[in-house]
């Protein structure tokens, strides 16, 4: 199917590309279907585009590349919900915010990673309780 997006134009995706977020994501609970839109030559980042709203896309980053000590424990209940059987099927990504479009100041939300089971095409943004993480960890130290 063809999905109109405000950032990438019309994107052709197949049924296997649709990721279901049964709960939506916080603040966008009504959006239940997304797909991943890779960034050429930049595997550290990937877009998560809402299918029903062309304007809503989240820039995601591989948090383990930028925060080597980062840990996410997926509780049993969430493993069941996302039908996780193999660790290899699981993507753990962090939502990036770019303040005023200034890439150097971009931050990652480490307290609420996006967990995706590629095999079952199920996803959820999991708000972790009891961690030291926050919603805004700078990806880059300002050298200026």
């Amino acid at each position, binding site marked *: 199917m063809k999905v109109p997006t405000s950032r990438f134009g019309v994107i052709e995706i197949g049924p296997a590309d649709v990721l279901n977020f049964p709960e939506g994501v916080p603040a966008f609970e009504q959006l239940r279907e997304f797909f991943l839109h890779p960034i050429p030559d930049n595997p550290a980042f990937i877009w998560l585009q809402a299918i029903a709203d062309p304007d809503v896309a989240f*820039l995601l980053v591989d948090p383990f590349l930028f925060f080597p000590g980062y840990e996410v424990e997926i509780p049993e209940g969430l493993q069941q*919900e996302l039908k996780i059987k193999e660790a290899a099927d699981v993507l753990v990504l962090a939502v990036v*915010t770019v303040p005023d479009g200034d890439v150097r100041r971009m931050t990652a939300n480490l307290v609420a990673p996006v967990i995706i089971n590629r095999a079952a095409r199920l996803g959820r943004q999991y*708000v972790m309780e009891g961690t030291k993480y926050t919603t805004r960890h700078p*990806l880059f130290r300002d050298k200026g």
Partner: protein
Amino acid sequence: MLVLTRRVNETIIIDGKIKVTVVAIEDDKIRIGIDAPPEVGIVREELLNAVRDENKAAARTALVPGDLPKNFLSRPGKDRGDRTDM
């Protein structure tokens, strides 16, 4: 809203499966213990609100892929979980 009075070590049972116990009270703080099945999500409201606010900001990201400098890839941040504002 249902309002109930509890003392320390007294419990409320919700839906036959979620047990909420007042563990301790000191000054204006109470410590609450929650026993719930694994599928029940439990989160402090302010943390969920922080995530909601951050998602709203993140969804406005108008970055085009070409804006992501590739040289950042070889320069991982030194941040090791320093606290910033939620």
